């Protein structure tokens, strides 16, 4: 079959990102030809500012060098500008500026022509020394001017203008920023924030002239620009004038080809222009009336566009919520969403002038819709996340201003502590304790490989890929290294893994609505990209199948992590540990004797009382496990599973002089009801007999506390990576109600949460109120949920017992090749 032809006009960030995404999906589908007007490969335009500031070099910011195009079989024409699209013959014509024309035919055309800087229509705007700030050539011109000249004037005090001014100042020029508005960065900041920013930039030596209208640029005796003259008659010297007064989508080519343009090349949710063979992405495209000027949206566009080019036809681009961050070292400004407010919105403002901190949060109907942060931007990522996901912030509203750590009560959280902690960290400082990755390694990877997302950093450095407690810190490092281009992770729209474009929610939904019952059916129905998934999606899919269709879907042991496959915890030396269940933490002399006997018989090196009120036998050889289980004669404690773990209890009214309720037997009843329950993540309960709460019910997924008149239920606590205090759920009178409410809460969690989401994270995502409505307020739903859980658990067999009877025997038996046959 002849390959199809794809031509890309614009060798910039959006065009090439779309090509990269396409190569991931369908590497063989197209012969790809790229035209770029600039004489370079694709580079990271946003890092021109650090280059200008002398913090990076041009070599540092290359995203795709010429070798990359070669390796991927892409024909690249640099320094050639496409001047004509012939839509009838389906070809483009490019000009190298010396009269040489190049033609290329296309089946599909991708326009990614970016923007052109807006040049003020004033006399003298074509003098030497008057430039825009857009590309490498501009940056080089500024660096050269700084070496030979003194006075720089930057027209426009937006992000770009301020970054240009800062860079020129650092290169020794005397810089004045001229702005027509009354305050700087008016599109990102309100006046209070802007005033603080201006003061801090002034302290770095920048000068500002606000409310000034430029009338003309005057030439110097040498014929170069020499001064700027304003409408009020005043004048300032200028050897270099940088126009940073805005950008316009570059639509000239599209318009000449008769494509519909309005504030950009008009595209649909599939990034197609009015000619369906022609796509457009990036700053040149107008989607639902908006042409974005930042990279995060164009990455999202590139992904959707590539999916359609690859003929997968999945995904719609629905617009982006954007956030911006000024890339001036030592100055922290962050803004996102709508911060100018309006009817029906409320502001929460913190304004500490001498402390140099200003924050404004804009709220509409219990949702965060905008944020401006100055001075302390550590929580920018968190606010942005809340904003993008449209989460209900009602419950944390009174603490919202004080940030993630405070609002969510994190204790001992290495990840979120402190303001610009990431920026201030030394390169050698360890960020990821699990994988031993230090800050310098992360920054280097971000720069060398042009990384933009947490996912990318995980892939390249392993940082934050294990326990995840350093995630916040890694996100901060990303943000401080690449500024606003950083794409905040967003689990609600993020694909499950590299094997699919669907996210967890969509996959759960599809398994339910299409009644998928096996792994293979799911791969097929959802068009999985890999033949049999990976170690990250398979366990998730398996859980979704069996929890959605109990007794119908097939459980797939090969898709479970080894612990769940072997029903014991693997140890670092390849041996296993076994934790037999002790219901509610209660045991008997007979059980203890058997444990002692087993430990001796199988030479178990370590016996330990766990934090879950039972006993761990550590260091058992895998082949001994079935024998150990048989001799123990106790059921599995599931200490290895994404499943019910333990129900801790205190002695309670059975013995304790303060006890108001019988907590031990309540705990045992709960544990027996839940035995064998698989869940998105592990589930732990505790029952205390009185509010002294000796069983620590306040940090459990479900905590039950006896009071004189009944029981209080708490949910979504977590004692692990980030300690989270459980939230009050409801109060009930009877033991039956404790069982019913707990079961209903957990069943809802089982049906709705994403794999590896603990109850606390699920509750944060969907909101406690919505859960209370369904479990506490709605008796009918509660009973139905309770019944569904009981149905799922019907006929559950102890996995250890099964295995002592020979189930999955191959799992435990090694094959021995006698010494004489093998001399390996």
């Amino acid at each position, binding site marked *: 079959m002849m390959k199809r032809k794809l031509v890309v006009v614009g060798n910039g960030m959006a065009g090439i990102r779309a090509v990269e995404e396409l190569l991931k999906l369908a590497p063989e589908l197209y012969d790809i030809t790229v035209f770029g007007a600039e004489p370079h490969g694709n580079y990271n335009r946003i890092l021109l500012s650090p280059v200008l500031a002398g913090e990076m070099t041009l070599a540092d910011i290359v995203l795709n060098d010429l070798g990359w195009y070669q390796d991927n079989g892409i024909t690249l024409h640099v320094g050639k500008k496409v001047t004509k699209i012939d839509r009838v013959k389906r070809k483009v014509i490019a000009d190298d500026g010396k009269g040489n024309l190049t033609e290329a035919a296309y089946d599909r055309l991708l326009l990614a022509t970016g923007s052109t800087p807006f040049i003020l229509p004033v006399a003298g705007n074509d003098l030497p020394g008057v430039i825009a700030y857009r590309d490498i050539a501009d940056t080089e011109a500024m660096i050269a001017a700084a070496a030979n000249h003194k006075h720089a004037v930057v027209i426009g005090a937006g992000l770009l203008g301020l970054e240009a001014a800062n860079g020129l100042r650092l290169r020794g020029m005397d810089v004045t920023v001229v702005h027509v508005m009354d305050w700087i960065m008016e599109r990102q900041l309100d006046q209070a924030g802007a005033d603080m920013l201006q003061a801090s930039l002034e302290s770095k030596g920048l000068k500002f002239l606000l409310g000034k209208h430029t009338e003309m640029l005057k030439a110097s005796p040498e014929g170069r620009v020499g001064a700027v003259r304003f409408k009020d008659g005043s004048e300032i010297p200028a050897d270099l004038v940088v126009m940073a007064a805005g950008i316009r989508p570059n639509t000239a080519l599209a318009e000449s080809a008769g494509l519909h343009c309005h504030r950009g090349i008009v595209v649909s949710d599939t990034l197609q222009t009015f000619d369906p063979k022609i796509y457009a992405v990036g700053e040149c495209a107008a989607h639902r009336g908006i042409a974005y000027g930042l990279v995060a949206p164009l990455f999202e566009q590139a992904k959707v566009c590539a999916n359609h080019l690859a003929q997968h036809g999945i995904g719609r681009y629905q617009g982006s919520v954007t956030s911006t961050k000024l890339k001036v070292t030592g100055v922290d400004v962050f803004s996102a969403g709508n911060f100018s407010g309006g009817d029906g919105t409320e502001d929460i403002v913190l304004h500490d002038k001498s402390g140099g901190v200003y924050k404004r949060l804009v709220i509409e109907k219990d949702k965060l819709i905008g944020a401006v942060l100055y001075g302390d931007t550590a929580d920018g990522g968190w606010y942005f996340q809340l904003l993008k996901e449209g989460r209900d912030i009602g419950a944390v509203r009174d603490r919202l201003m004080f940030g993630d750590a405070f609002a969510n009560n994190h204790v001992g959280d290495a990840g979120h502590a402190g303001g610009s902690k990431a920026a201030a960290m030394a390169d050698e400082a360890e960020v990821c304790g699990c*994988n031993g990755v230090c800050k310098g390694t992360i920054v280097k990877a971000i720069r060398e490989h042009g990384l933009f997302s947490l996912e990318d950093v995980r*892939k*390249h*450095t*392993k940082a934050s*890929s*294990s326990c995840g407690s350093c995630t916040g810190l890694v996100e901060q490092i990303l943000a401080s290294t690449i500024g606003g281009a950083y794409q905040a992770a967003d689990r609600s729209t993020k694909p499950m893994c590299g094997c699919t474009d669907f996210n967890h929610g969509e996959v759960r939904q599809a398994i339910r609505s299409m009644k998928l019952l096996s792994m293979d059916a799911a791969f097929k129905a959802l068009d999985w990209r*890999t*033949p*049999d*998934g*990976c*170690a990250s999606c*398979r*366990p998730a899919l398996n859980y979704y199948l069996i929890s959605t269709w109990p007794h119908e879907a097939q459980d797939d*042991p*090969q*898709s*479970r*992590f*080894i612990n769940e496959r*072997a029903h014991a915890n*693997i140890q*670092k030396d*390849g041996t296993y540990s076994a934790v037999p269940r002790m219901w509610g933490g209660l045991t008997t002399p007979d059980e203890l004797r058997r444990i002692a006997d087993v430990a001796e018989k199988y030479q178990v090196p370590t016996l330990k009382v766990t934090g879950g009120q039972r006993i761990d036998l550590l260091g058992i050889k895998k082949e001994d496990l079935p024998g150990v289980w048989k001799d123990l004669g106790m059921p599995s404690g599931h200490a290895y599973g994404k499943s019910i773990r333990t129900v801790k209890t205190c002695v309670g009214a059975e013995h304790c002089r303060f006890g108001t309720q019988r907590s031990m037997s309540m705990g045992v009843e709960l544990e027996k009801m839940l035995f064998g329950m698989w869940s998105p993540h592990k589930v732990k309960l505790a029952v205390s007999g009185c509010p002294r709460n000796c069983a620590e019910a306040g940090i459990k997924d479900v905590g039950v506390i006896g009071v004189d008149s009944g029981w209080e239920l708490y949910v979504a606590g977590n004692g692990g990576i980030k300690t989270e205090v459980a939230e009050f759920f409801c109060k009930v009178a009877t033991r039956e109600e404790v069982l019913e409410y707990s079961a209903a809460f957990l069943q809802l969690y089982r049906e709705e949460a994403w794999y590896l989401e603990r109850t606390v994270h699920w509750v944060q995502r969907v909101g406690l109120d919505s859960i209370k409505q369904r479990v506490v307020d709605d008796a009918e739903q509660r009973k139905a949920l309770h019944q569904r859980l009981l149905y799922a658990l019907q006929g559950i067999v102890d996995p250890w017992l099964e295995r002592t009877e020979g189930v999955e025997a*191959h799992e435990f038996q*090694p*094959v*021995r*090749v006698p*010494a004489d*046959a*093998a*001399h*390996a």
Partner: protein
Amino acid sequence: MSDWIEILKLDHIPRQGARVVELGPAGEATRVAIFRTATDQVYAVKDHCPHRGGPLSQGIVHGGQVTCPMHNWKIDLASGAAVLPDKGCARTYDSKVEDGQIFLRLA
């Protein structure tokens, strides 16, 4: 001289699973993981992850790779090489399947 030795039947390994073969005297045996992929490809790799020696046989098998259960390195079964960005290589052995019987070559 042919060094092929009979190990076990293909059926005795689940698809997307592995069995461990212990070669040599107990106590100092070499452990080799025999993998069977979803498409019945068979590979023999030393049961020792190039990262920190994790037992690869206990990992999840997907495509032609196994993910180590210890710290999630991915190892290509055919070559024993760690998948980028990780670096390292596990020793591999020649194996073949004839009439449903798996053979291993030790030399």
